[in-house]
């Protein structure tokens, strides 16, 4: 047995709310963060809507100094630093002058500083490499976000960035959990970030995985589990969670959101129905089953699932995988919600933003509503009782939540969180 691991701090920069208070209100009220994007329309995108967080300059000035802001054009770093520092403050942890050797970070990203990279590419091609300045490297290196956070928070333990497409956020939490459980760190800032903008979202538009049917109705566009779901709405932002050994949390008298009981990460090997872009169903089921085993719980005790559920044709398949892995269906199926109905698909940040939502629901005893699935997909209705897919906010004590994320490359992650009861 290793150390028990708990969540003691949360931070979030989401399309429907920056900061925990605004985000909580949004996910309780079912407020969509999806908006029309003039820039995407001007660039002739098929999908002209997106989930882009609102981070006014006055807010940025609280987290970056004048020089940093002068040179910063990596939206992912802006989101990640704000969410990460919020989580640190929320956990009641200090900003110190000496490194904290027991604290580190695993803060994931799908790519880094694509706008900065674009500037650099233009300069290089114009034979102006000497004019790149001093921050082209630090803003475009994959680990830019963890490097920024490491400096802001004086982290003296492992400082790294993981990357596994849309499982990145869930994976970061499991990596941080393992490091604390094994005793190599006392506290780890886990989380992930995703850049905004056309150069990130263009590829999804080209693949036709983004919906092009709701440009006139942005708030209705992200429709997980709906019969009229027609593709993802691209999003961005960052979620951050301070993970801490239970001993350290109790010693500090920190407030505890939830306990991380365990989880599992695997891949379908891009075989048996799995491919670069689609999950092997056998791997998904194995991932969920292994997470349950590792957490030492029974599938029958899970109260709530926070799905991956992206609003593509794959949602029904995901539900079927849950039914098989848990051996539960109909009225016996756990409650399930899809945060993406409100924020779109925040890509590499999706898992961490969704885990922040899960931690809030566990701590405060509510289940956030699914919006835009009033016309439940018939294949899903055949598997799960309608009342298990709430469309209104439910106040309910929940004890165990399973959260899964899946990503390109046929990679999967599943995490089990439990409500923490003060002894």
């Amino acid at each position, binding site marked *: 047995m290793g150390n028990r691991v708990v969540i003691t701090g949360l931070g979030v920069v989401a399309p429907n709310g920056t900061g925990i208070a605004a985000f909580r209100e949004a996910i309780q009220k079912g407020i969509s963060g999806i908006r029309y994007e003039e820039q995407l329309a001007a660039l002739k995108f098929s999908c002209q809507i997106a989930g882009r967080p609102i981070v006014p300059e006055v807010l940025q000035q609280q987290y970056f100094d*004048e*020089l940093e802001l*002068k*040179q910063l054009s990596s939206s992912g770093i802006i989101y990640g630093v704000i969410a990460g520092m919020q989580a640190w403050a929320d956990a009641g942890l200090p900003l110190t002058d000496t490194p904290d050797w027991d604290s580190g970070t695993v803060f994931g990203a799908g790519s880094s500083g694509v706008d900065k990279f674009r500037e650099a590419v233009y300069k290089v091609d114009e034979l102006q490499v000497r*004019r790149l*300045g*001093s921050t082209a490297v630090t803003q475009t290196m994959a680990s830019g976000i963890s490097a920024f956070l490491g400096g802001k928070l004086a982290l003296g333990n492992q400082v790294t960035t993981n990357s596994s497409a849309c499982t990145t956020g869930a994976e970061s939490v499991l990596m941080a959990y393992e490091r604390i459980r094994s005793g190599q760190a006392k506290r780890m800032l886990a989380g992930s970030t995703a850049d905004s903008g056309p150069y990130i979202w263009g590829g999804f538009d080209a693949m036709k995985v983004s919906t092009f049917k709701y440009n006139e109705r942005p708030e209705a566009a992200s429709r997980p589990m709906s019969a009229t779901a027609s593709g993802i709405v691209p999003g961005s932002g960052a979620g951050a969670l301070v993970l801490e050994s239970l001993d350290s949390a109790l010693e500090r008298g920190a407030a505890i959101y939830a306990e991380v009981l365990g989880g599992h990460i695997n891949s379908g090997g891009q075989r048996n129905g799995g491919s670069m872009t689609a999950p092997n169903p056998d791997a998904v089921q194995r991932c969920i089953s292994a997470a349950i085993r590792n957490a030492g719980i029974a599938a029958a005790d899970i109260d709530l699932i926070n799905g991956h559920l992206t609003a593509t044709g794959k949602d029904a398949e995901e539900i079927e995988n849950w039914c098989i892995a848990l051996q539960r269906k109909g009225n016996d199926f756990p409650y399930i919600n899809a945060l993406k109905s409100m924020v779109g698909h925040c890509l590499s940040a999706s898992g961490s933003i969704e885990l922040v939502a899960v931690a809030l629901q566990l701590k405060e005893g509510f289940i956030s509503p699914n919006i835009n699935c009033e016309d439940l997909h018939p294949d899903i209705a055949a598997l799960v009782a309608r009342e298990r897919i709430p469309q209104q906010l439910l106040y309910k004590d929940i004890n165990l939540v399973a959260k899964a994320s899946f990503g390109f490359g046929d990679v999967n992650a599943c995490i089990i969180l439990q409500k923490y009861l003060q002894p």
Partner: protein
Amino acid sequence: MDKETFIEQLREIVRPYAKNQEALAGINANTDFITDLKINSANLVDVVLDVEEKYDIVIQNEEMERMLNVQAAMDIVEAKLKEK
């Protein structure tokens, strides 16, 4: 351009990079960018780029290496402006 005007303009250029505001307030020909103003050495290239932009000049690699204090910056910029 007289010396005082130049130092005044240079003060504004280095202001965002200088970590020592007191030294910035008392900036003079002998002020060293790194030891006095506490500018991060990685940011020296940014200072050079900002100086180039301000005076519409191009500073060569060898000159950049020497440009570590106010006097050196002044000498280099003056020479460049004369060449124009």
